[in-house]
Structures are given as C-alpha cells and as structure tokens.
C-alpha cells in the first residue's frame, strides 16, 4: 500500500514518467479483495469468478438482501439521470440490465411523451443504451431478462462486453454514464473514473450508485450485524456460495467513504460533484458533471 502511494506521488511530479510504462510490469501492486490482500492481476480474475457463480441468482439475492429496496434505489438513480429521447447512455457493470431497462422505460413512457417537443419524437429512434459488463454470464442473464420484458428486439438496447477501465467507446460520445453497484469491483477505480470522463460529452453526467458507509451510531451496528451474519448465510442458502457474499460485504467496507470517493470523482475532472445518501448511508448516489 505504501509503495503504491509513493509511486503515485512520484508519478504526479513526473519523476517517473519515462519509467511509467515499464513500472507496471516491474512492480506488482497489491489491492484489496474484501479483507484479503491480493495482487492486482488476480483481483479481476477473482471478481470474474465471483460474478460467474452468482449470475444466475443475482437478482433474487439482490431482492433478498435489500428487502426489495434495490428497486427503489435504481428508480432514484434513473430519475436523477432524467433521461431524454435521443440519449446515448452507457451503463457499466450493468450486467443484468436493471438500470438499462428502467431508462428505456422512462424514455418511452407515454406520460412523458405528452410533454415533449415534436423534435424529440423524431429523435426517439436515435436513443441508444449500451449495457457494458466484463462478465459474459451476467450479460446473458440480462439478454434473457430483456426478452421476458419485451425489449428483446428493441434496437435501442445494445449489449457490449467490456472492461470499465478500458472502454471501447469514442471520446465524448455519451450523454450519460451510470454504474450501479459495480465500481467497488473495479481494480483501479481512478482508471474507471478517467474512462468515464473521457467517454462523456460536454454536459454529460456521471452517476454512481454504490453501497457505502453508514455513520449513524445505532444503525451502524445493526447494519454491521446484518451484513456479516445474515448476508453470507443467505448466500449459502440461496445461491450456495458463502464466499462470494462474504467478499461482497467485505468489499463494501473497504470501499472509500462518500467524501473520499467524491474527491476521487472530482480529481478525475468532474464538476459539481455531489452525493446523496439513501437509507442513512447504506447506499450513496454520487453524481458529477462533465464540461
């Protein structure tokens, strides 16, 4: 850890810039996988394994763990985004498509249609929502769910396999970027944020929904108890995979606090960085504007 911060400090002063490229090969930096310390190259592999195993029961487990609240959180995320027809949106780590479906539904919503410009209706066909996920299993589950919901042949929904740290989209091509419950699984958060900044247009918004830190005194203890005792047990019962859910709750604790994450977002180049705590801090929605 210390090595990493020194490295970063030196990099800022441009002392190591000629060596930068070779550095990543010379030093293997460690990162966190839950409470374990693992090498960076291993982390993405291990995360991949986690999600391959949970993919089929992912949505059910979400419902059980949050008591159905995750739906409300995602609704809140989408309403903050305020989608509009003709929007080009990128949902990263959105494997099973929850957020993407909601955005599509909100754009096609008949009620909103009444209040729109004629121009908007013409542009409706240009809406494109990209769902990007590093794990193909999650994407398959998402495609199946799209079929069930009637979005199977909707041209607006595009499923892309890709890495949040190295997106294959052009600079300044997206109106919106969301990442729901995905950023803590990324090995280098700053890279993901930098990619988000690159890919957004001027005026584009970055929104991140993530489990975060609770500070309220009594609630914090209740939440800790629930996280460490109930959730892994649920994982074992329902998904048959205790370790994945142990990783999940540990990774939440290791994730930076709301303020720190907001600073990281600002450092990536975003303006007007704000966050909103839901359920007392269990979940936080961070947002930023790109100019």
């Amino acid at each position, binding site marked *: 850890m210390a090595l990493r911060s020194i490295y970063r400090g030196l990099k800022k002063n441009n002392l190591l810039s000629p060596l930068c490229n070779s550095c990543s090969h010379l030093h293997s930096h460690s990162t966190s996988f839950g409470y374990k310390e693992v090498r960076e190259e291993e982390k993405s592999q291990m995360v991949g394994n986690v999600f391959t195993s949970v993919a089929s029961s992912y949505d059910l487990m979400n419902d059980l763990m949050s008591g159905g609240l995750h739906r409300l959180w995602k609704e809140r995320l989408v309403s903050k985004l305020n989608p*509009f027809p003709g929007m080009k949106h990128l949902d990263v780590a959105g494997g099973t498509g929850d957020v993407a479906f909601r955005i599509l539904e909100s754009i096609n919503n008949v009620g909103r249609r009444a209040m729109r*410009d004629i121009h908007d209706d013409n542009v409706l066909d240009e809406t494109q929502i990209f769902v990007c996920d590093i794990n193909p299993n999650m994407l398959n589950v998402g495609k199946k769910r799209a079929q069930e919901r009637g979005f199977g042949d909707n041209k607006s929904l595009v499923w892309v396999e890709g890495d949040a740290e190295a997106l294959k989209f052009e600079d300044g091509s997206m109106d919106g970027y969301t990442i729901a419950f995905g950023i803590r699984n990324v090995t280098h958060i700053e890279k993901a944020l930098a990619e988000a900044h690159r890919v957004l247009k001027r005026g584009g918004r970055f929104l991140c929904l993530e489990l975060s830190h609770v500070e309220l005194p009594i609630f914090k203890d209740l939440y800790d108890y629930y996280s460490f005792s109930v959730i892994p047990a649920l994982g074992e019962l329902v998904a048959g995979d205790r370790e994945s859910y142990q990783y999940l709750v540990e990774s939440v604790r290791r994730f930076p606090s709301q303020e720190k994450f907001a600073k990281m977002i600002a450092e990536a180049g975003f303006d007007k960085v704000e*966050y909103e705590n839901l359920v007392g801090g269990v979940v936080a929605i961070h947002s930023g504007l790109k100019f």
Partner: protein
Amino acid sequence: MYRSAARRILPAVCRRTGHFRSKASPVRFSAPIIHPAAFSAAAASENARNHKPNNFEASKISSSSNEGRKPRVTDRPKAHWQEEQARVLQASLRHVVRPFLPNLQFYYSKNDLLIGWDRLLNFIGQISLGWSDAAMIAGAREVGVSPSIVGSFPRKEAALVEFFMDDCLQRLIDIIDLKEDLTNLIPSNRVAKLVRIRLEMQAPYISKWPQALSIQAQPSNIATSFKQRAMLVDEIWHAAGDESTDIDWYVKRTVLGGIYSTTEIYMLTDTSPDFRDTWAFLDERVREAFDLKKTVQEQTWTHYLASYPERKQQYFAIYLHTTPVRHPLGLEVLRNRKPLNTNNRVSACHHRSVKKYHSSDWLQNITNLLEDAQDMQIFQAKYLAEAVGAGMGGSVQGFVNNLFKG
C-alpha cells in the same frame, strides 16, 4: 439601510446583490444534496455578474486546476459549470414561448400544396414548450451542451423560473440605476411605474405565466420564490425612496407584495391592447394603498363607536366619570343627566354603566371598569373576524370601510 435590514432577514440576499463580498458559508461540493437544493439552484440561477465567495474555489479540488485557473482573492468569476448552466437556462427561455409565425398564404396556395406541407410542419414544431424540462433540453441543444445537464438542476423547472425571476430583478435594478426621472414623480407614482416596468418584462411570457406561478407555488419551491419576491418588493420600495426602519418597513413590503401579486394575476386574463386595463388596475391599487393609512385612522374609532351606541355611551360614561365636571356649586354632575344622589347612587342612576363604576367599593369599581374594557376588546376582535369572513368590498378601501360599518 434597506440592504442591512434585508440582510438581517434574508440571508440569501447578501449573495445575490453583487455589491458585497459575502462571507456566507461556501457550498461544499460534497455536501448532501437534498437540502442545499435551494442553494445550488440559487447558485445555478445567479447570472454571471455575481461573485462567489473565496472558499468555494479552494474547496473544489481539481476541476479548476484542470482548467488552469488559479484561485483569486478579489473579483473571482463563477465556477465554469455554473456559467454553463446559466447559459443553458438563458437559451431555454427562448423556447418557453416561441413566437407565432403563420404563413397562411403559403398553405392555401392551390398550386403549391405540396411545398406548403413542410412549412406547416415547421410551424407546428414551433409550439411553445412552457416552463418545462423540454424547454431546457431544447435550450441545452441550442447551446451545444448535452441535454443530460438538465438532470443536474435539482428542481428542474423551478430552476428555470427562478433564473428568469433573478434575471428580471437584475434588469429592474439596472433600469433603476439608469433612470433619473423617477425622482420627479411622487412616491405613489414611482411605485406604480416600477411595478409596471417589472410586469412588462413578464409580458412576453404571459401565455405560459400561469404555469410559472404554479411552479413557484409548489411546496419545494415556495421558499425561494418567496425570497425572490421579497427582494423584488424591497428593491422597489428602496427605489421609491423608503427610509423607514420600524414596523412600517414590514407593513409597506407586505402591502406592496399584495399589490404586485394581485396585479400579476389580473394581467393573466387581461386582453386589452398593451395591458392597459392592468395598468389602470395597478394605479387604483397603489392609490388606495397610499390612502389606506389615512383611511384606517379615520375609520377606526368613530365608526366603531357609531355602530354601537351602547358602547359609545358606556365609553362616554367612563370618560365622564373619570374626568368629572364640577358644578360651580360643587356638585358632581353628568352632562345632560340628572345630578347624582350621593346617598343612594345606585337607585338614582338610570344608566347602567354609571352603576358599575360608582359603588362605594373602589376595588369593585376598578374591576368593573377593567372587565368592560376587556369585553370591548374581545368584542372588537370578534367583529373584525366577522367582517373579514363576510367578504371584502371591491377594494381595500371599501374593505376597511365595511370593516367599521355595522
């Protein structure tokens, strides 16, 4: 003076008036969103002429350094994104009410029927979007910014309306600073003229103004809209030369607030050319307000008394008995009444009120007196309530007159 009073009451004002370097607490970029909605909306809707406090730039870490801007102590410009937001809002205003451009000859031309269609569609596409996020999306597209920015305004339509209100206030201030002929008018005319100037700024948007009013009346927006109106009214009174600092300050602002609101609402349904009827209405109200003070003083006592002969006589009795008139012969007399029989005051007196205040027990006298005074006050309050409930007359003056009539 009004500015110090305003600063006392409306903390947001000191940021709004560009003349002050405010030491208000900075908007922390990481503060939770919900409650500074008014804050950031106010910040977003302030136009480029305002100055932000120093600490804001310092607390924002790298977005400013990315743009190569160094924090400056004096005269710092607004943050880049706020300027962009203001530009978007300014452009959106053009889409709130789009001008009506019929080209009827084209449509009805028999030969050119086909060519006419796309013009027709174009014209249909010019529908006014009103104070909505559709207008803001159109505005954003015009400025060349992604329409997602609309989502970053905390209360979307309200941000547009508030921006417009601030913009109008700023224009009014500019007009006041420029115009010198205001001092030639008497105060009531000055006030009327200023209200008229302000309302004329709204005239282009009058077809969609009811929507704006309803947005302002929503619970989440009402605090900011109230502040904006208070600032407006303050500005008008100050320009009209108001120097009061006591209870009058509040009374004047409230009265003018009422006049402004009623005129605004009257304007919504006024179809006369150039809103002539509205200005006549406005002049009437202003005149009444200035006469109101005199009216109230004149009407209060005499009408109240005249409506209740009994009370009047009671009062007279008290008055008379507390300031006795001495007969030259040394006897106490009541005007137009029989002289009191000192031996048997109770039986000699036929007037009920005298009985109460003339027993030999001084404490009883005083108690009776106080009870009656209290009764009268209660009665007065009850009567006022009834009068209000019974509905007002056609004008404020009529209302006051009705109040004190029977």
